[in-house]
């Protein structure tokens, strides 16, 4: 189901690059504000996951439509899992879902 290690590393590098300030300004990001509010996760948390996380699943690495699952930590060390899709050639990334590990949620509460 997942890709091999090397392509996943490439994907992670790309994603980290996306989250850095050197990304092209036409690169953009879509999210559901209701999802983030419901889970008490901020956009800065999501960006931090992109910057430091690892792509654990990618069904497609080139072109639009690739579905990736990224795992990483927010600033407080909570593990977040983000499901994203690359929806256009101009590097628009849509956050489909994001989850915080149950243990972390309880710790944070």
């Amino acid at each position, binding site marked *: 189901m997942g890709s091999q290690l090397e392509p996943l590393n490439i994907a992670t590098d790309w994603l980290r690059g996306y*989250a*850095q*300030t*050197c*990304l092209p*300004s*036409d*690169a*953009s*990001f*879509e*999210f*559901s*504000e*209701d*999802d*983030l*509010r419901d889970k008490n996760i*901020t*956009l*800065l*948390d999501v*960006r*931090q996951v992109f*910057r430091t996380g690892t792509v654990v699943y990618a069904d497609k690495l080139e072109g639009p439509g690739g579905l990736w699952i990224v795992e990483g930590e927010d*600033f407080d060390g909570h593990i977040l899992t983000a499901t994203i899709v690359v929806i256009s050639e101009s590097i*628009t990334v*849509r956050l*489909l879902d994001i989850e915080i590990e149950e243990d972390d949620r309880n710790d944070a509460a």
Partner: protein
Amino acid sequence: MTQHELITAVRVVPAYEVDTLGAPFRVTLLDSVHVNYDPKLDKDFVHIPDFVGMVNALVRSRAIHPRKLGGSEITFLRKALGVRAKSLASYLDISAEHLSRCETGSKVLSSASERMLRLFVFLATFYESAEDLLAKLDQPEVTAEPTRKAKVSELGEAFLQYFLTLRIQTVFSADEPLHFELVRRPAEEGVSPNLDEGDWSSRRLAA
């Protein structure tokens, strides 16, 4: 499913208030944010162009606003730049414990440290990595590359305009929350209209 149902509805929001950023002040994005309705998922998706550029513009806006930084604002600025508390404390020449207490509000950052912090966060928005910039300040052999948008002349003007004359306001009404409005400037002439080469900036500062 009809062709009509396959087309997602896109609308531009005249004034989009970003309450999912985790910012301890109000942030409104003017005439820049799109909301796409996805009928398959039955969800609205918010589209912020150049998200990182927007965050950097917000950081700069707060760095030059004279109101004294509160603890939650220090935390926000640090997280917005992706800087570890330990690195920032080292740069400010204070202990990590003291910075932590300042962020939680049990201690207050000295004026000298606050000026250093403001200078750093402003400058860091022009660099690819704020952590690398901090490392470079300690170890000149470390490489820290500015982004393509960094211009020495702009930085110099900003420092002259804002920081050398900055007087931090320590007395203000808590009933007047900070509110930043950001706009996306259009692309310079000669840039293809198909590319969004614009830039985020603060339209005005309201307090």
